[in-house]
């Protein structure tokens, strides 16, 4: 409330007889004050200031700040005097809301408070950076805080936190803390977790404030392995005055700061509107909350392209206050830039909030000069990306060679004071003095008499300090000198650019990429899925990055004994760079799209010896070299030498079976997209799905009618619902009607409603248009609508109003129309079966849904998604949660491979139905099984990719998979290859025994596909599996056979190859001879 309190008091006039004036003041403007009577009923509520004339009695006063509440009792006696109450300082018991953080801070609150008040290292003057980390040490080290280093923007290491600060080792509860005095500006905090990743967060230190950062370790289990992350997204970052120390018992503002930060990272509006009304002096005493509040306001623009006048007013005031409180702060500069105010700098320093960077980028799109081409921020923009609410530096691990550290110089207190005084000396005095190492002449500008008064020290002490400082500064490099002293020559920016490490590209090269990079970041900011919750960033593992553009080859896990691995993906950036990519049990990592860290395929049944992918002879082709692994199977065949897959085959997606354990799909993927696989309710990460998601995001908040085209069963209604749920109509009705199923006689009453008695049997009924008022009406199968229905639809679309049947008053509703069809409407128009104007009215925006065969990499995820539902219905959900990694795969690789290669004419609906049938048909079995009818169904139809003739390649002499896949379905016609069903069980076992249980040879003898024999072996109760045998049994047989594995495999009637793997896994035999 922005009113004059005294005037308000005056307005109320004198207190009436029998009344008492109660005057309650909030401690800060966002305090909500509620007056409660003795029956516990709220009788008045105001913000910041409440004044009432009340009868004498007992009352309660409730003070709320954000989500915090504090109540006091108030007695109003009939004294005739005004009772003045000031709000208490609302304290809360737990410091920050996050469970982990609270746990950390409750455990270490006193240590954090104590250490934050002591300066450990001085690397400048003007601001402080306090870092507190719990339970973190670099892999291989037990010392708390190892792997944490602070760097300047050029990458030079300033401080090793494990050496400079304090720490305490306690089992599972160690901490390290370091308070560094620094020159205001932006820095990079590096967290190095070794092979598990590295990230660097931009941290801004501002003048006369202490930036406090609380970092935690998060560990989680992934397939039995512990993976650690520096929990950056949940790290707390606060600004406090130096010397105040960390407040372990948080005041409400800090609490709101935390909630606001989380809300910002979740892109949820948190700050309630009343909080933003009134004198917004949040920025004065809580700058971080001021920044969050400003961005929360700007976040409303999603729904409203421009800020409303009141919001704009609040934002202006807020930014004015922030610019006083934390001047020169790049995050404030970004806000000023957006408001059209002149920022105080030219963005030499990057901000720390991702949303601030977004503002800079947004403005730069129209006015490139706002980030000067030669500024540091421009030069490093390609390294910046988002992480939670924060801006981080994408450190390329491959090029992250440690920079030589600047020698650390200790300055005593007097020297620090001198440096501070020097910094206050106008820089212009030194502008013409070249800053070089050596005796700094600007020290002469210090006034000793003034320092005597200022520091209250004898002049001799000050003179000695100046002499000492002069000596120390001789050894400081020029660019460091400018930081320490604040004496910046006019060409500082250019000098800084030259000081950048050589790995930062030259200006001319950056000039070409800079703008697109800025837009990349900007685009990412508009994409919530990009803000993934990973903490240790490793560009190498993510793949792509600034250099990657367009789809690149990738391997996606389609089937794995641990079903949670399905969907994990490895981007084959090495292929794009012309390198070989070895694949084995242990390399490379397969992170889930959207996450930085992942695990290798890891399955114990896979070989440690790699098979290799390399660029093919033809552009876009990929060569598969099975090497010595002998586990690679493509289309049911095990290549004996290098094979080459054509670009068409890769574009279509080629499944590769590995050791009867894992299936990966070689396909093309967009490296820049990192969304969760279920974003917007659509399962999948394929390029096709990503495109659809982008369309939805673009059009969701508009009223423009959308026409969704796609084959039957491809998920059109799901997309319509996603459109509805992503727009501002999400809380309003979503109505759906199948126009193909509606009769022309009832169409009008169904769509527009009817009056009672409008026709025989008619009752008063609300039509679908009215029911969807304010929301979305989904017209499914619009191509099947009878001509009469088309006509009435066209009428309402043209006029915007309609008449319910039997009514004479037109009705106007606010409905967003989404239509869908699998028909070729243009052809129907030519044939006169569909009205062309209706198409134009409905197709304000078109979205094409890709058929499932164009997104084969999603089939594994979709299959497991539907399987999960079906398994729960038969109480077998545990099939997808195996306890041991070496169990037999629940989804046989041959079946997974066929599922991926099948054409799916019925698309996702067909996949869902087929999944259910397989699950139910396999009920009680530990491995999925196909009955002959389903076998026939999925072997019956698979379209081949387009054929492009290719010249023979000298690089692929031994074998090449044809571009046209003649083996689809797997088996050739029965006239050419017999079916396994043609053989009796005795014949099959005899063939296996004759070939020493070698599957490959047995299938060659029988002339059947290996996959069918594997299926048969899995199903047959008369053959055993090495994987199902206990260690004791195997050890006994190994001893009895005296190590003869051929004899042992014959004796046990198991595949010799599987036996060798099993024995090695159990440690019963040694060697890498696989």
């Amino acid at each position, binding site marked *: 409330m922005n009113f004059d309190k005294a005037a308000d008091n005056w307005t109320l006039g004198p207190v009436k007889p029998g009344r008492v004036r109660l005057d309650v003041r909030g401690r800060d403007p966002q305090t909500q004050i509620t007056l409660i009577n003795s029956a516990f*009923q709220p009788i008045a509520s105001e913000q910041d200031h409440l004044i009432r004339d009340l009868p004498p009695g007992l009352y309660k006063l409730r003070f709320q700040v954000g*989500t915090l509440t504090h109540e006091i009792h108030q007695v109003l*006696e009939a004294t005739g005097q005004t009772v003045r109450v000031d709000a208490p300082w609302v304290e809360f018991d737990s410091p920050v809301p996050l469970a982990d953080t609270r746990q950390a801070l409750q455990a270490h609150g006193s240590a954090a408070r104590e250490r934050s008040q002591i300066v450990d290292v001085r690397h400048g003057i003007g601001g402080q950076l306090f870092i507190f980390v719990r339970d973190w040490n670099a892999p291989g080290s037990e010392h708390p805080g190892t792997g944490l280093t602070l760097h300047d923007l050029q990458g030079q290491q300033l401080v090793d936190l494990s050496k400079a600060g304090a720490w305490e080792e306690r089992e599972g509860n160690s901490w390290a803390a370091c308070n560094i005095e620094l020159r205001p500006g932006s820095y990079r905090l590096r967290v190095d977790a070794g092979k598990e990743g590295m990230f660097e967060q931009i941290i801004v230190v501002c003048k006369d404030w202490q930036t406090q950062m609380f970092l935690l370790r998060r560990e*989680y289990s992934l397939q039995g392995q512990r993976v650690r992350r520096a929990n950056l*997204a949940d790290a707390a970052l606060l600004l406090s005055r130096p010397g105040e120390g960390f407040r372990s018992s948080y005041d409400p503002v800090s609490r709101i700061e935390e909630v606001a930060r989380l809300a910002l*990272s*979740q892109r949820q509006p948190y700050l309630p509107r009343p909080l933003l009304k009134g004198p917004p002096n949040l920025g004065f005493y809580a700058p971080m909350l001021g920044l969050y509040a400003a961005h929360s306001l700007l976040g409303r623009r999603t729904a409203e392209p421009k800020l409303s006048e009141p919001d704009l007013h609040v934002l202006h005031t807020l930014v004015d206050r922030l610019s006083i409180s934390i001047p020169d702060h790049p995050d404030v500069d970004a806000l000023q830039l957006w408001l059209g105010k002149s920022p105080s700098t030219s963005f030499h320093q990057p901000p720390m909030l991702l949303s601030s960077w977004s503002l800079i980028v947004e403005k730069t799109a129209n006015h490139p000069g706002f980030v000067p081409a030669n500024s540091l921020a421009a030069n490093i923009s390609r390294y910046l990306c988002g992480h939670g609410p924060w801006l981080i530096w994408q450190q390329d691990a491959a090029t992250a060679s440690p920079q030589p550290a600047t020698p650390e110089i200790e300055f005593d207190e007097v020297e620090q004071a001198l440096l501070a005084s020097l910094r206050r000396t106008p820089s212009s005095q030194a502008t013409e003095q070249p800053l070089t190492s050596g005796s700094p002449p600007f020290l002469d500008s210090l006034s000793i008499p003034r320092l005597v008064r200022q520091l209250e020290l004898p002049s001799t002490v000050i003179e000695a300090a100046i002499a000492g400082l002069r000596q120390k500064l001789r050894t400081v490099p020029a660019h460091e000198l400018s930081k320490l002293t604040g004496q910046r020559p006019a060409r500082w920016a250019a000098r800084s650019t030259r000081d950048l490490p050589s790995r930062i590209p030259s200006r001319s090269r950056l000039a070409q990429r800079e703008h697109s990079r800025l837009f990349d970041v900007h685009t990412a900011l508009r994409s919530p899925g990009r803000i993934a919750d990973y903490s240790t960033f490793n560009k190498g593992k993510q793949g792509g990055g600034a250099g990657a553009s367009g789809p690149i080859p990738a391997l996606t896990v389609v089937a794995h004994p641990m079903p949670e691995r399905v969907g994990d993906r490895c981007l084959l950036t090495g292929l794009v760079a012309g390198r070989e990519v070895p694949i084995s049990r242990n390399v490379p990592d397969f992170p889930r799209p959207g996450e930085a860290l992942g695990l290798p395929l890891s399955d114990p049944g896979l070989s440690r010896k790699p098979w290799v992918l390399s660029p093919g002879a033809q552009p876009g082709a990929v060569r598969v070299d099975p090497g010595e692994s002998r586990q690679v199977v493509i289309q049911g065949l095990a290549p004996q030498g290098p094979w080459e897959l054509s670009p068409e085959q890769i574009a279509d997606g080629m499944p590769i079976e590995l050791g009867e354990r894992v299936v990966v799909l070689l396909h093309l993927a967009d490296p820049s997209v990192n969304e969760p696989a279920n974003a917007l309710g659509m399962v999948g990460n394929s390029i096709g799905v990503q495109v659809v998601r982008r369309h939805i995001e673009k059009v969701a908040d508009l009223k423009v009618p959308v026409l969704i085209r796609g084959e039957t069963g491809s998920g059109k209604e799901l997309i319509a619902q996603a459109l509805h749920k992503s727009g501002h109509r999400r809380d309003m*009705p979503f109505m759906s009607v199948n126009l193909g199923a509606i009769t022309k006689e009832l169409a009008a009453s169904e769509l527009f409603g009817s009056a009672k008695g409008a026709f025989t049997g008619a009752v008063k009924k609300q039509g679908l248009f009215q029911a969807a008022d304010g929301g979305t009406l989904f017209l499914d199968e619009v191509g099947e609508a009878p001509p009469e229905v088309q006509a009435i639809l066209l009428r309402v679309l043209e006029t915007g109003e309609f008449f319910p049947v039997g009514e004479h008053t037109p009705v106007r509703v606010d409905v967003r129309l989404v239509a869908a069809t699998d028909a070729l409407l243009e052809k129907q128009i030519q044939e006169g079966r569909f009205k062309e104007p209706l198409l134009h009215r409905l197709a304000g925006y078109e979205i094409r849904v890709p058929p499932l065969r164009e997104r084969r990499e999603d089939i594994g995820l979709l299959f497991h998604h539907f399987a999960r539902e079906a398994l729960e219905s038969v109480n077998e*959900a545990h099939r997808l949660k195996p306890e041991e990694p070496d169990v037999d795969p629940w989804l046989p690789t041959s079946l997974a491979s066929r599922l991926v290669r099948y054409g799916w004419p019925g698309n996702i609906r067909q996949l869902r139905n087929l999944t259910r049938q397989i699950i139910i048909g396999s009920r009680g079995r530990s491995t999925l099984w196909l009955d002959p009818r389903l076998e026939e169904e999925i072997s019956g139809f698979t379209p081949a990719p387009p054929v492009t003739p290719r010249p023979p390649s000298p690089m692929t002499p031994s074998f090449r998979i044809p571009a046209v896949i003649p083996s689809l379905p797997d088996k050739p016609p029965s006239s050419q290859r017999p079916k396994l069903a043609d053989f009796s069980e005795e014949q099959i076992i005899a063939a296996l025994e004759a070939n020493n249980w070698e599957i490959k040879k047995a299938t060659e003898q029988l002339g059947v596909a290996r996959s069918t024999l594997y299926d048969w072996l899995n199903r047959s109760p008369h053959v055993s599996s090495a994987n199902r045998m206990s260690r004791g049994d195997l050890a006994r047989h190994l001893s009895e056979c005296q190590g003869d594995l051929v004899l042992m495999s014959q004796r046990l009637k198991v595949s010799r190859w599987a036996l060798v793997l099993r024995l090695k896994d159990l440690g019963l035999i040694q060697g890498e001879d696989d």
Partner: protein
Amino acid sequence: MAMNKEDFGIIVGINQYPELGALSGPENDATDFRDWLISPEGGAVPPENVTLITCPQPPATSVFQAQPTTVQLDNAFEHLHVRANEDGRGGVAGRRLYIFLAGHGFAPNLEDAALLMANASRGRTGHHIPGRPYANWFRTAAYFEEIVLFMDCCRENYRRAPLRLPPWEDEHSETAKDVRYFYGFATEWSRAARETPQQPDSRVMGHFTTALLAGLRGGAADELGRITGRSLKRFVLGYLPTLLPADQHQVPTFDFDDTKDMDFGAAQPPVIPVRITLTGSSVGREIQLQDGWLQPVFGKVQRVQPDLWRATLSCGLYRVRILGGTSKVFEVIGDGTREVHVEL
């Protein structure tokens, strides 16, 4: 009293979590809420309309055997789907649906709370039932005229847990906007909900459920004897802090449209026993009790011992003062089963 034959309840209390640590209160909460729900003086819901889901005995030791899981809950809800879609019901399952969920929980986002199922563990928090989306589903489908949701579970923030949505196709009824709702959560977002042995019988119960049931059993009755959503909220917000130790905070949150308040029955406004203990120099001295209008209260307070006075008072603010000496304002709130203790 007539029973509300068209009211239904799904009540869940989960004590046993093999991987998250056992609780002691949720099953007590659930059974006590069920008892109130089926009592003619309480919710008056026929017992056959109430589904109570708790952990089977003996407790499971592995998450793979642990129950209940989402399957049991979804089945319970789906019985209501079936009922709503029976011939002649016109898409209406009943008048009011009560959903009560107690156990471990978390908040996948700022708005929601989710009850973790018995088979959940750290890293497997996808096994949960988010109360609000489920309740909202029934609102949107208008299977009931009124939806009541109470969740006594933590709302700690787990950013990585995906929100599990009701597994049913959306149903939008044209009468959805008329459906009344009343949602109560044990605590605010990102905060913990707590349980403790409650007096007089030391049964472990959630603070929220204790306060909620105290309100529903009459503590929340307003001056006209009505228990409404508004009065219930007011009561729980006032009463729950009295159950907590001094250093603990737990602030429930409520969500309802107060222009469409909900009726939870009627009761006589409770009368609450108050014990006033005098200490130090106050022992043996006369006291004066004043009501919220600072008027003396006569006839309701009497000396039992030199240092002990007893009174029976209705809910409200009071002041006790030693004549010519100190005074103290105190709150009388509750359902009459607990004594209010004042020390002067």
